[in-house]
């Protein structure tokens, strides 16, 4: 595989992991987050600092980054639990801005210059190639999807679904709303941190701007594009929005304009996403399938 292709594939698979982690909070538990890039950043910075300053190897610093993002997610989740709906959206947005400001203004985090010198992981006594790194990320992603499948069929998944549909009714049925919301936040943040760890070792160089508000919106758009709350939707969204900047290179000047209009058009005409309920894609696929059957 060419280096260019591998780079795009790795970017997309990291975005897929990230979109999947937001889908746990927003899709499964129904809690809007506009600051998810903050946890992505916390994971990336934790991995970067543990690797460059504490000298831990990749295989330790990335799991620790996930744990750390999960812990911060639990702490920051507390103010979020006091508020609902739109208040929650703006509170999480605020958390995103504050975390970015902390990275930017506290010298320990390297300021605007960020952190450099975070290498690709090594195994068998040599550095991994990018192709191997891609396969590693895909394997982790597959594990996460399996976990998602198991969770969705467990009582945790049921509890989340009940909170998402009607918080008061869930609470009346003695679902412990606060506990399950915290669980969703912690799990989602930890997985975002995991993606951040992989991202730091892939970019080898991280800056606060990688984890700003625009990034949070991009992640949310991936989830919404693919179909919020579906298992495969976030992956499809990540792939589409990950490829978009590459194929629109010839119209560089109008790229962001196109992206904005795409968001508007998508929500206006296909609000439940490509794989969501009454999706045009799924409908036409089923129609095509039945036509094939009749033909044979």
């Amino acid at each position, binding site marked *: 595989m060419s280096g260019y292709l591998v780079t795009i594939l790795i970017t997309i698979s990291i975005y897929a992991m990230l979109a999947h982690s937001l889908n746990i909070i927003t899709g499964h538990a129904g809690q809007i987050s506009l600051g998810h890039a903050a946890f992505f950043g916390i994971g990336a910075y934790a991995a970067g600092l543990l690797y460059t300053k504490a000298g831990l190897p990749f295989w330790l610093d990335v799991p620790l980054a996930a744990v750390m993002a999960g812990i911060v997610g639990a702490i920051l989740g507390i103010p979020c639990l006091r*508020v609902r709906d739109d208040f929650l959206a703006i509170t999480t947005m605020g958390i995103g801005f504050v975390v970015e400001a902390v990275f930017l203004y506290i010298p320990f985090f390297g300021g605007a210059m960020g952190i450099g010198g975070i290498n690709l992981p090594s195994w068998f006594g040599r550095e991994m190639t990018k192709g191997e790194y891609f396969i590693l990320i895909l394997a982790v992603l597959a594990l996460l999807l399996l976990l998602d499948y198991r969770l969705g069929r467990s009582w945790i998944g049921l509890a989340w679904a009940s909170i998402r549909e009607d918080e008061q009714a869930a609470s009346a049925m003695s679902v412990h709303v606060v506990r399950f919301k915290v669980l969703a936040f912690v799990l989602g943040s930890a997985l975002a941190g995991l993606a951040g760890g992989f991202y730091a070792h892939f970019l080898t160089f991280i800056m606060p701007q990688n984890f700003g508000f625009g990034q949070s919106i991009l992640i949310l758009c991936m989830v919404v594009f693919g179909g919020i709350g579906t298992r495969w939707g976030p992956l499809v969204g990540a792939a589409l929005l990950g490829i978009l900047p590459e194929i629109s290179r010839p119209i560089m000047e109008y790229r*962001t304009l196109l992206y*904005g209009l795409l968001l508007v058009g998508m929500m206006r005409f296909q609000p439940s996403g490509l794989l969501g309920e009454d999706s045009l894609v799924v409908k036409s696929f089923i129609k095509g399938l039945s036509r094939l059957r009749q033909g044979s």
Partner: protein
Amino acid sequence: MIWQQLANGIAVGSVYALISLGLTMVYGILRILHVAHAGIYTLGAYVGLVAFRLVDHFWLSLVAGMVGAAVAGYLVERLLYMPILHMPRIAPLIVSIGLFTAMEEAFRIAAGPHTLVYNAKVGLGELTIGGFRLTETQVLILLVTFLILLFLWLFLTRTKMGLAMRACALDTETASTFGVNVNAVIAVNFIIGSFMAGAAGVLIGVYDNQVWPTMGSIPAYKALAIVVLGGLGNIPGTVLASLIVGLAETFFIGVLSVPFPRDAIAFIAMILVLMFRPYGLLGKA
């Protein structure tokens, strides 16, 4: 020194109030987080600037900016928000963010990425009371904000439409059973909100003497923090929160020289307040 910072803080807070009021009014009735409101604000500044270059008269350009913004706000409401009101709340939010992104890009492509000078002669003059000095543009901001707030207050408390608007903010369905034309109320609501955003755009254009494509980026998110701080949908709360944020910013940065980004203060204040009052300063559950 302190007095000067106070004047600066109140001027900044007044502009925040003009931007945030539209946002809070839209939220009060439609429950939409109208991020693209900041795009309307930028549009107002550009329309005002173009008008100023054409007629070379500040007050006419202010009116042009306000009218331009109001028309744009009305179109956004009719063409984009109305058809998706029944969707989950995340749909209008993303439409709004997408629209805002597209608007900023459209300004950049149409008017160029550089800043344009808005060098208007207002003709008001400075105001000096003892050691307290207001620059000409500060006088302008305070005057225009005062007039607009007065107009808004009279409109909401003295007219039939204002009464209908307050009724819709309490409960749209009940209001409509009492014969309130909800569609008209929503349209008027958007027009007035955008009108104020347009005024804010022109005022900031003159105050900073520049207009640029991304001038709405920071207000877009800061206004959301202010609106939540005051209590979403609460008009007096929004004015109070705007002044608090305007003053806090000028004092923390100007007087205490805290090494912290100015634009994070609104969000920190908001998170702290929400810990104790989950519905904002003056909001009710």
